[in-house]
């Protein structure tokens, strides 16, 4: 557990007035408040640090204790007992040893709670001051959920375990890769009557081996043999909901694209609406030709 220099956290001098501390806190809180920086874990961590520093320095009693024990904070209780004994024996008040803090250390990063350092010095809740703002909103949680393209194409339910809590969610068909949804109140519980944080889920949906997705459209490359490409015919192709037979026009060129309306990806939160499937024909040149086949190609070359 490292020392934390709360003055450094708030960017104020050790002799700063309570008004200076209040102003510094407000300024930093406006910059790093989670409401103003949604889905930014760094800001949340920083806000937690600022909050804790203000909890100590903004309260003259806590500030006094913090200033008094300095780097000997681990022995605060012991020190206090000795001071009391000294006062009983000799009267007067025991002074501070004048020790200063070393550079600020890291926070525990526990969800929405104070650092171990704070709790060692002031107890788990630190005795919050009264007033509306004494209740702190719980920390937001961020989670990532990986889905296959097929899973993302249908509305389905999932049970997620986030920080030991089971949460049942319905994932609507058509969610996008990288899209984040917010589940209000499913984050960490608030402190001192504050509201719970939110849960942000970001979907990771990689393209599959067959289909590539762009918005609501799907793209697929389909190999086409030379003879069907030249003479036309039919070709079976994969779609998300099974195979379909597609007519191939005679003299189809390599790279030709065909758009199949409504055979693409479901549109997010629009039931029954789908994007398109774009098929790109990849004409394959035959290999390992027999002598007879080569002769026929030469014949074609002569007359072509």
């Amino acid at each position, binding site marked *: 557990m490292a020392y934390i220099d709360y003055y450094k956290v708030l960017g104020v001098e050790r002799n700063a007035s309570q008004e200076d501390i209040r102003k510094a806190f*407000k300024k930093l*809180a*406006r910059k790093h*408040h989670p*409401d*103003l920086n*949604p889905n930014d874990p760094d800001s949340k961590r920083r806000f937690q640090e600022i909050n804790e520093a203000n909890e100590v320095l903004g309260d003259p009693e806590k500030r006094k204790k913090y200033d008094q024990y300095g780097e000997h904070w681990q022995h605060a209780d012991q020190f206090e007992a000795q001071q009391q004994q000294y006062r009983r024996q000799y009267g007067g008040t025991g002074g501070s040893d004048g020790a200063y803090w070393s550079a600020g250390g890291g926070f525990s990063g526990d969800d929405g709670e104070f650092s171990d350092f704070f709790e060692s010095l002031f107890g788990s809740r630190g005795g919050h001051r009264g007033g*509306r*703002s004494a209740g702190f*909103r719980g920390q937001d949680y961020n989670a990532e959920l990986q889905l296959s393209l097929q899973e993302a194409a249908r509305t389905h339910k999932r049970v997620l375990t986030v920080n030991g809590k089971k949460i049942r969610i319905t994932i609507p068909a058509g969610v*996008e*890769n*990288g*899209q984040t949804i917010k589940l*209000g*109140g499913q984050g960490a519980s608030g402190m001192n009557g504050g*509201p719970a944080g*939110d849960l942000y889920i970001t979907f990771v949906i990689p*393209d599959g081996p067959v289909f*590539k*997705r*762009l*918005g609501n459209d799907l*793209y697929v490359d389909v190999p086409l043999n030379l003879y069907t490409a030249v003479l036309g015919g039919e070709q079976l192709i994969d779609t998300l909901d099974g195979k379909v037979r597609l007519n191939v026009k005679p003299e189809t060129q390599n790279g030709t694209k065909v758009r199949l309306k409504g055979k693409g990806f479901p549109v997010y939160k629009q039931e029954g609406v789908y994007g398109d499937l774009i098929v790109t024909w990849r004409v394959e040149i035959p290999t390992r030709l027999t002598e007879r086949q080569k002769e026929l190609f030469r014949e074609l070359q002569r007359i072509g």
Partner: protein
Amino acid sequence: METDLIIVSEYCRKSHVDPSFIALLETEGLIEVRMIEGIRYLPLAQLCDVERYIRMYYDLSINIEGIDAIRHLLRRMEDLQNELNSLRNRLRLYEDSLL
């Protein structure tokens, strides 16, 4: 469609919020309050926004005009984030096709 409603006066009492603040949010068009048989109600769907505005106002000392501006900027930020995401996916598709 049925909507869950919260009695404004009750909410203000429990969360130590001055009712005039809710009225101010309503006047400035940040929220919509429903009046049913003389009682003012807050739709549950707006609760999350109201709580955010309360935190901005009371904890961060941001005035109503500031909250409104932040609201617009956050929406704009969300739109841009979605657009960035969509462009990233598009770029990935083209990059993959080049490989």
